[in-house]
């Protein structure tokens, strides 16, 4: 992709099926028309996301990840978005100890018909990620993080 090659931050977004409607905003692969470096993956509920998947996405080379849930207080499944918000905060603290900036992990909350606000948030997110220094290349990292994360997860 030309935009990604031009240095736009690569971002993976997990979007709850009941949160913002993205029909017409993306191509079949989930790539946003407005920001081709952003790929959306639809999931049944924001609370479905296992925090290790976000970590894995960053390790695989994504510059940032975000999760979109329904507005707080209005989760279709009652508390999925609150749970996800807590999990992302915990993950931010945990990754901060390994010098991963918290800005790389974001929780958004937008209702089904709130796409303007959603797109504005994504644009803001890309701006913030662009200002961060690029992460160390994935290959240059030791193999340790995988084990470290397992130990921390168990403790």
């Amino acid at each position, binding site marked *: *992709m030309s935009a*990604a090659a031009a240095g736009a931050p*690569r971002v*993976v977004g997990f979007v709850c*099926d009941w949160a913002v409607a993205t029909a017409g905003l993306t191509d079949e*692969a*989930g*790539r946003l028309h407005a920001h081709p470096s952003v*790929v959306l*993956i639809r*999931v*049944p*509920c924001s*609370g*479905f*996301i*296992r*925090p*290790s*998947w976000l970590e*894995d*996405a960053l390790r*695989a*080379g*994504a510059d940032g990840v975000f999760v979109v849930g329904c*507005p*707080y*207080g*209005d989760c*279709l*499944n*009652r*508390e*999925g978005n609150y*749970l*996800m918000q807590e*999990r992302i905060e915990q993950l931010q603290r945990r990754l901060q100890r390994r010098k991963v900036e918290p800005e790389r992990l974001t929780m958004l*909350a937008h*209702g*089904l*018909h*709130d796409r303007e*606000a959603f797109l504005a948030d994504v644009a803001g997110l890309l701006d913030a990620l662009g200002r961060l220094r690029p992460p160390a290349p994935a290959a240059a990292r030791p193999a340790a993080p995988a084990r470290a994360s397992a130990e921390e*997860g*168990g403790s």
Partner: protein
Amino acid sequence: MYRRYLTALQRWTLGLDVWINRVYPSDLNPLYYTGGLTNLFLFVLVLSGIFIFFYYVPSLNGAHASVAYLTEQVPYGGLIRGIHRYSADAFIIAALLHLFRNWFTDRYLFARDSPWISGMFLLLFGGFVGVTGYILVWDERALVVFSELVRLMRSIPLVGERFAWVLQAGPGISDETMPRMLLLHVGPASALYVLLWWHYVRLRHPKVWPPATWVLTSLGIVTLLAAVVPAVSGTPAQPGVQPTTMWLDVFYLLPFWLAGYVPPFLIVAGIGLLFVAGFAIPYVNREDPHAMGIRHAGVAQVVDGNCTGCELCYYDCPYNAIVMVPSPYPGATRAAANRKLLAVVIDSRCVECGICIGACPFEALELPAFMESDLQRRVAEAVRA
């Protein structure tokens, strides 16, 4: 057809939220707490009702006089009566908002039908409590409501006469009638709490109370209203005497207002049909989830060998669909080898949201239609391009 209307109504409901959320922070949107507000008003009704109960005299001659004494002589009595009166209105309004909101946003389907069914019972009981509450005041309006209610009951074939007997505690209005009305006011009101247990039993952390801001605002509005527009009684009821003129609350007493124009049996049948349709709502279109545009994730599955019995999914499941049972045998992985408990998903309660998958750090749960490997592959494709 039904489906199309419902989709449109959902768009309006959620579109309204977008506007409200521009004014309030989204977790203070009052429409997200209609259930909690209903419960708050019920609580206010119980407290003010207990106060009124100390003064109320359930007899034909004493009822109207005791309410007048409470309103005029007892310190703050009129205020508390007004609070009781307006909380009842607010209770019904909040309950109806709660009903329509959950209907239009699809929160009553499949495994979530039991809150809907208990909710219909709550509405039925709550509505009846409201009607007997109007009668207890025992002014002219109460008498009209009472005789219309008896007439509606009598119009039911076969059992109608018996119902009317139960309602009046005898063949006609007698000394037994007012105690019976009080019983029919307080009894079903207490039953609301039994039904509320049913309403909450499948929910983990039910949102029973609205945020403090809305508790205080609601209490303030109801108190102000009670002070500025006091609740008053009409002329005392005199059985046998035709009432002259009176004011009828069309919002609440619509069936009684209609009774002046429509045969009573049609009204009873209409109310009955309304509730039968209400009870049927979760089961309409039930056989055809794909046509409804719902993506079926499949019931969450426990990966037996990986489960460590840590209970994280059990605490996070919003519907109490996961129970922990004593582990019958050790797990396969090192972390699961010494487990004492094993998670089990109760299929009939699972709404297929996947929140337990996010809660599980041991990869011991999965949604059949959203396997972790597929997601990882999509993430890899996304970052490679």
